[in-house]
């Protein structure tokens, strides 16, 4: 029997395209990946920024499947649940993606056909697949319009921002680890203080030391909650945006591929025209006819590809501006939320020490 975790996806909506106003479905992780694949296939060629799903984690998942009952596997499930929730939120916030029937089906349909092939392909893996094709993307040698400078600048900004976010993420992870360490060390210290209080033969001092041990115990809980905030609010925000910036880069590269295709078509057309010119000289009427047909065909393609390029440029620009707005909103709201959690910690700290101070003064 293959055990898996199912996540409950609940929707509340007033949109007419849905059958009901509130409804829930059960989905497994591969379903989310499957949704991403379908959306990528359909929309990434248009220059859409498709929100990437969370990464597969073999280690975390195996632990849970084996049924290891410890806090780390509970943490893992919660981390994944929260990440999947954010992923879906981003998908449904996207005006074009929301209209996609696959999204509707994902949210509404009771039984979803098993997504095939996702056990080999994680979200990141799929991204890599798209990106690999763009490895050979060439840079624009001639700027067609001023807007290309805009795209160049934005791509550079994205790359530099991604670098900084990766750095920041690494430091936040370090903070999470040190806080967890502090949490453990505080608990151990609290116990040692309690023991010391027990052996102290001056009654008032003994009492105060026990109270101090209790304060340190409370601090342990505080540190634990703070580490959770550090992780769930800050670290995960950064991880999401590192993935998203990767998707944005993919989007820009998609535009470049379209440009490349247009350029290649133009050079093919040029070659066809040269062939035609040669044939005119050589006087081969039937071959000439074929050459003329090919020219017409490629003229059509050039026009088509130019239109494609213009269209994708418009979309990418629009998508990018929308992304920037979302990012700004997201960062502001999440960081404020994080600061508020820090604030609450300090408020509780004040209470702990205010309660302890009279105990300390009572010694002697």
């Amino acid at each position: 029997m293959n055990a898996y975790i199912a996540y409950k996806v609940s929707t509340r909506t007033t949109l007419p395209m849905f059958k009901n106003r509130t409804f829930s479905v059960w989905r497994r992780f591969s379903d989310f990946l499957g949704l991403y694949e379908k959306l990528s296939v359909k929309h990434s060629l248009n220059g859409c920024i498709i929100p990437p799903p969370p990464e597969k984690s073999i280690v975390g998942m195996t632990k849970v499947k084996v049924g290891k009952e410890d806090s780390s596997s509970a943490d893992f499930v919660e981390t994944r649940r929260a990440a999947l929730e954010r992923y879906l939120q981003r998908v449904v916030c996207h005006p074009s993606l929301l209209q996609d029937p696959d999204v509707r089906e994902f949210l509404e349909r009771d039984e979803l056909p098993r997504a095939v092939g996702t056990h080999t392909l994680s979200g990141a893996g799929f991204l890599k697949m798209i990106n690999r094709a763009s490895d050979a993307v060439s840079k624009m040698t001639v700027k067609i319009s001023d807007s290309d400078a805009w795209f160049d600048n934005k791509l550079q900004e994205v790359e530099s921002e991604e670098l900084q976010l990766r750095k920041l993420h690494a430091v936040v992870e370090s903070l999470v680890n040190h806080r967890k360490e502090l949490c453990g060390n505080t608990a151990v210290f609290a116990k040692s203080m309690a023991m010391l209080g027990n052996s102290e033969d001056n009654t008032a001092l003994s009492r105060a030391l026990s109270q101090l041990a209790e304060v340190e115990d409370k601090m342990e809980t505080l540190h634990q909650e703070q580490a959770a905030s550090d992780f769930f609010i800050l670290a995960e925000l950064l991880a999401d945006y590192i993935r998203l910036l990767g998707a944005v880069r993919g989007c820009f590269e998609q535009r470049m591929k379209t440009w490349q295709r247009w350029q290649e078509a133009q050079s093919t057309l040029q070659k066809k025209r040269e062939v035609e010119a040669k044939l005119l000289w050589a006087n081969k009427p039937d071959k000439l006819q074929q050459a003329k047909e090919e020219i017409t065909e490629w003229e059509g393609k050039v026009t088509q590809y130019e239109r494609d390029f213009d269209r994708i440029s418009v979309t990418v620009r629009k998508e990018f501006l929308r992304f920037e707005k979302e990012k700004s909103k997201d960062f502001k709201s999440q960081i404020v939320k994080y600061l508020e959690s820090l604030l609450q910690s300090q408020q509780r700290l004040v209470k702990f020490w205010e309660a302890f101070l009279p105990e300390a003064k009572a010694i002697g």
Partner: protein
Amino acid sequence: NTGNEWGTEEPLKEEVTGLAVNVDLQTDATLQVDISDALSERDKVKFTVHTKSTLPNFKQNEFSVVRQHEEFIWLHDSFVENEEYAGYIIPPAPPRPDFDASREKLQKLGEGEGSMTKEEFTKMKQELEAEYLAIFKKTVAMHEVFLCRVAAHPVLRKDMNFHVFLEYNQDLSVRGKNKREKMEDFFKNVVKSADGVLVAGVKDVDDFFEHEKTFLLEYHNRVKDASSKSDRMIRSHKSAADDINRIASTLYTLGTQDSTDVCKFFLKVSELFEKTRKIEARVAADEDLKLADLLKYYLRESQAAKDLLYRRGRALVDYENANKALDKARAKNKDVLQAETSQQVCCQKFEKISESAKQELIDFKTRRVAAFRKNLVELAELELKHAKGNLQLLQSCVGVLKGDT
């Protein structure tokens, strides 16, 4: 004024008296000792020991000498080895100045200079310099506390070696003990601890000392445990503060990439984190001073008290053995006078030690309670101050950020 190998001049006095681990010190005009200055050189620290005294023993009323750590140890050891002082708690020797960790960090920083921005490097260098200075101040305070304890003790303050230490303005030439001496010390300690176990096993007739023995054995172990655990906790705290520092730097870099809304936001948050992490670092430093150092000091003091009990225990064993020898001599009617004299000497020694030991142990308790009270009150007040400071910073920043959006 103090100089150190980094060439920065820093005023020393301000925080030295912050570490008044021992509070019940009778500072009277007859003898006042302090460390007025200190200089940190490559591998040694030079302390300027300053004395003010109205005692006739000294040539002048006020004078200073320069001493190094080894000379403090010589003085401490001379007390321990002096039979006359067997009945007193010998003030524990100050720990050796240890800048190794700090130096190592600075070296690592120098090696990694190329991999960080100029701002980051300058910031980290300032941090390490502050850390070095804190360690320096602490070692000065520890050496000062030792001298003050001696000066406050009614008997030890009269010690000849102590006066030489304070007044003789040449090098005392207490060269580091050579290898043979070190080996002898090692064996002495081994024997002592074996004896310690033996003596501790004998139940004392005197309730007071029986209670003290039980109490001190347990207390000493628990203080040791609490001390090492507090160190570990404070280290984690410092690491977390360091991380917040790096977060502030990276946010600053992000904030300076552009002048958009979100960039301005990053700059404000970076500024906030800069301030809060300074407070967090202060919290860790204060916990170190008021809690960790307190525990470390009482670890050493409780050991000194145990040593006193051991010496009394030894004297008791000697006394009991002398009694047995006397009984035997009387039974055989051989060398009775010799045995009587020996027994009397042992008896006097034991009683003398017991009498002063009782007072010493009572004083120890009084000092301990007072020191804990002072430091715990100060700890709580500082923690409150810092938490409130942090709170205010966060509240005003969140207010501004929410107002902007």
